[in-house]
């Protein structure tokens, strides 16, 4: 059987144990020296924006801010979910911690029913 990565018991792992992507995602050309400003690839964010049938065009700045906002969102929801895990005296964030955070925080109400 494949060697289990540290902390993960699932034999099926898409990425290496260190979290580095085995297959690098397609990166937009703008993500070289400005990598500090936005870690999420702008091309992927742009694809999400274009998925909306009502959207005609989106400026480069808008895509960039959406990417940065998504990063802030991930940080925020991770921290809120962690509070729930801490209460349970656990050191691993579980799916249920996330569900609790979504229910508890009003701002995450738009996520209800979308993650199943």
């Amino acid at each position, binding site marked *: 059987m494949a060697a289990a990565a540290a902390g993960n018991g699932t034999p099926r792992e898409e990425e290496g144990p260190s*979290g580095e992507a085995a297959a690098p995602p397609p990166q937009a050309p703008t993500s070289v020296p400005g990598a500090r400003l936005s870690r999420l690839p702008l091309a992927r964010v742009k694809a*999400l924006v274009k998925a*909306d049938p009502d*959207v005609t065009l989106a400026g480069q700045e808008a895509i*960039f801010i959406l990417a940065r906002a998504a990063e802030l969102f991930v940080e925020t929801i*991770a*921290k809120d979910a962690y509070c729930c895990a801490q209460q349970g005296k656990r050191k691993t964030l579980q799916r249920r911690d996330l569900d609790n955070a979504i229910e508890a925080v009003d701002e995450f109400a738009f996520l209800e029913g979308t993650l199943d």
Partner: protein
Amino acid sequence: MAERPEDLNLPNAVITRIIKEALPDGVNISKEARSAISRAASVFVLYATSCANNFAMKGKRKTLNASDVLSAMEEMEFQRFVTPLKEALEAYRREQKGKKEASEQKKKDKDKKTDSEEQDKSRDEDNDEDEDRLEEEEPNEEEEVDN
């Protein structure tokens, strides 16, 4: 191959890195929780896009701009994001400006190089006017050679 919005996920490695940096050391995250956060981030972008698009349409514009997204954040009750996003936007604009100036500077340097090559030919004479004369004379010399 129909692409549904739910399939447009952000790269797992980047999501994991952001989560780990947000949390204290030694805290782990289960695969299910991580992929749920990844999907949540995609939903967030879609929802923010839709809100921002409403602002753009109100302004009778067809292109989403930065202020539309910032207005969307406030509408979605993520006001706390607005200030860091504004700072990030300023830094991004400075960087874009820097890139533009850098490419313009390269162009200037390229032109300078061409000029300095012509100056080397007339090093004996330091007069600028003579250099101009030499430039005019060169094509004349070619004509003489042809004859």
